[in-house]
């Protein structure tokens, strides 16, 4: 559905306009919801209007991008790896149109394509460190939607982080898979259960809608879980330890600012250093977050130290998607 809210002052003509195209339904992904917030905020800030085109599959992605290009807004924002090919094609055909891709970049560089990419693995690594420090069984694991490089970013660094602080930690990863991997919370719960029955007591949940299933499984066994994108602690207080926050909204807003400010064609990478990736536990509202980590200040202190090492470049985290 199109959400073309005019901004407060509402002069549609002459005002700037932005179109956000998503790769999937917004409902399924927290970081897409953040992206929508980002583009709304940008519209407000720039006194303009915005639209959101939600896609469901490759065919609708192409149709939506084409429709966005046809409508000629000031900036077209696209979220997701899926758009790299389409943007490369459209950017060449429409050199006057500005594009902003979040989460990916075209292989060739274009003057009219700006990119914002995230280093989720840095945040996941810190979450893994928390898990390593908190785990009693010495076993931590992750449940991913699918076995793809993009989801491996949520499991491999988690293991690495845990091993960094507790080298003997055993790690494992499960993938939801099945006919509808993004929506299948029951299957995600079973996958979490297979980890739990092996004694795993700290689980990274990167299972989209399945996260809630992972939380339920962990809760039932008195184990702990880690959420993604936003603060998921309130949905299962006492079970969710922390979350890897990905500030898609910030990336969208800053990206649009940059494009409008004449700095198009650049790639900005957001990690711990830039504040694009963070943990709920490292943010200011931690005490009211309902996250378990709020009660483990000692762990947070150690994690903060790791964070500082990563920020300073002293410690680098491997990116599974870069292989």
């Amino acid at each position, binding site marked *: 559905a199109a959400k073309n809210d005019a901004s407060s002052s509402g002069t549609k003509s002459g005002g700037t306009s932005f179109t956000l195209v998503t790769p999937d339904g917004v409902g399924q992904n927290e970081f897409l919801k953040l992206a929508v917030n980002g583009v709304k905020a940008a519209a407000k800030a720039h006194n303009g209007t915005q639209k959101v085109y939600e896609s469901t599959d490759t065919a609708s992605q192409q149709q939506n991008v084409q429709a966005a290009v046809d409508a000629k807004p000031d900036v077209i924002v696209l979220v997701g790896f899926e758009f790299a090919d389409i943007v490369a094609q459209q950017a060449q055909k429409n050199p006057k149109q500005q594009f902003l891709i979040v989460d990916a970049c075209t292989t060739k560089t274009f003057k009219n394509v700006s990119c914002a990419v995230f280093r989720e693995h840095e945040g996941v690594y810190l979450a893994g460190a928390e898990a390593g420090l908190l785990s009693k069984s010495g076993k931590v694991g992750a449940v991913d939607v699918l076995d793809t490089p993009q989801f491996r970013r949520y499991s491999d660094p988690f293991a690495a982080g845990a091993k960094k602080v507790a080298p003997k930690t055993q790690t494992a990863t499960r993938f939801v898979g099945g006919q509808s991997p993004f929506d299948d919370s029951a299957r995600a719960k*079973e996958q979490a259960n297979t980890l739990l029955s092996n004694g795993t007591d700290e689980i990274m949940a990167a299972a989209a*809608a399945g996260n809630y299933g992972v939380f339920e499984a962990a809760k039932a066994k008195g184990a702990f879980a880690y959420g993604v994108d936003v603060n998921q602690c309130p*949905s299962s207080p006492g079970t969710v330890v922390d979350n890897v926050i990905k500030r898609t909204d910030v990336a969208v807003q800053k990206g649009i600012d940059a494009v409008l400010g004449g700095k198009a064609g650049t790639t900005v990478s957001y990690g711990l250093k830039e504040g694009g990736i963070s943990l709920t536990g490292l943010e200011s509202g931690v005490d009211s977050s309902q996250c378990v980590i709020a009660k483990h200040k000692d762990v947070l202190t150690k994690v903060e130290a790791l964070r500082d090492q990563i920020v300073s470049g002293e410690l680098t985290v491997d990116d599974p998607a870069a292989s």
Partner: protein
Amino acid sequence: MFFDSDLLMSALRALTPILLAALGGALCERAGVFNIGLEGMMLLGCFTSVATSWFTGSPWLGVLAAALASAAYSLVLAVGAVTLRGDAVVLGIAMNLLAVGLTSFLLRTVFGVQGTFDDPTLAGLPLVGGFSPLAYLAWAAVAAAAVLLSRHVWGLRLRGVGEAPDAAATLGVSPARYQYGAVLVSGVLCGLAGAQLALGNVTLFSENMTAGRGWIAVVAVMLGRAAPLGVLLAALLFGLAEAAGFRLQGLGLPQQATDAAPYVVTLGALFLTTARRRRRTRPTGVAS
């Protein structure tokens, strides 16, 4: 331990919603209505059970509402395929599509959220001995359906209607009545399957959360030759293959292999059973 009690529990949990839906499908099949809309009816059950449980605080009312809502929804198939003699396959496909759209729409209008509705205070079904009461109901339903079909007056008539509707009609048995009945019962069972999935297996609703379970139920109906015990075995095989698949991921098998495992196992079982049957009865020329 690879084959341990956790594996069995996991298989049984995966099995329950599939079994309930497949029993409904089997009844329809016996009555001569090909019901491919199990997935949609189940999804509607998921939503209704969660919404009702949320607003009333009672998961039991949720179960009841799910059964009623899915039964009402199944009327689309009954009216379309039985009364109007439309194509049951197309109707089923459309019902599945409709259920996805409708539940997502309701999710947004009723709860004001997109994607998933999940709340720590949402009341799910209690567990008795590790399973929700609906799981026990599912087992009871297998027995009930088996007795109904083989021994009960209704079951006899239902089988007759499915096999030769005009023969039943000449004896004053209305095929349409029995077909409506079967479709409505399948609606109720799919509603229960949905409630089991959304208030038993997990406690939340998310868009399209049935994720193909209705289709697996359809396969189980075919594989089990629409006999309650056959359907149970088929669903059990499937559940075990899936649970074992999860374990195999732990042994390093790629996710794609474990995704395919239940289907490959099912196909293999099918080959074996039909090979045995074929050795017993040889097909003959035109008469086959």
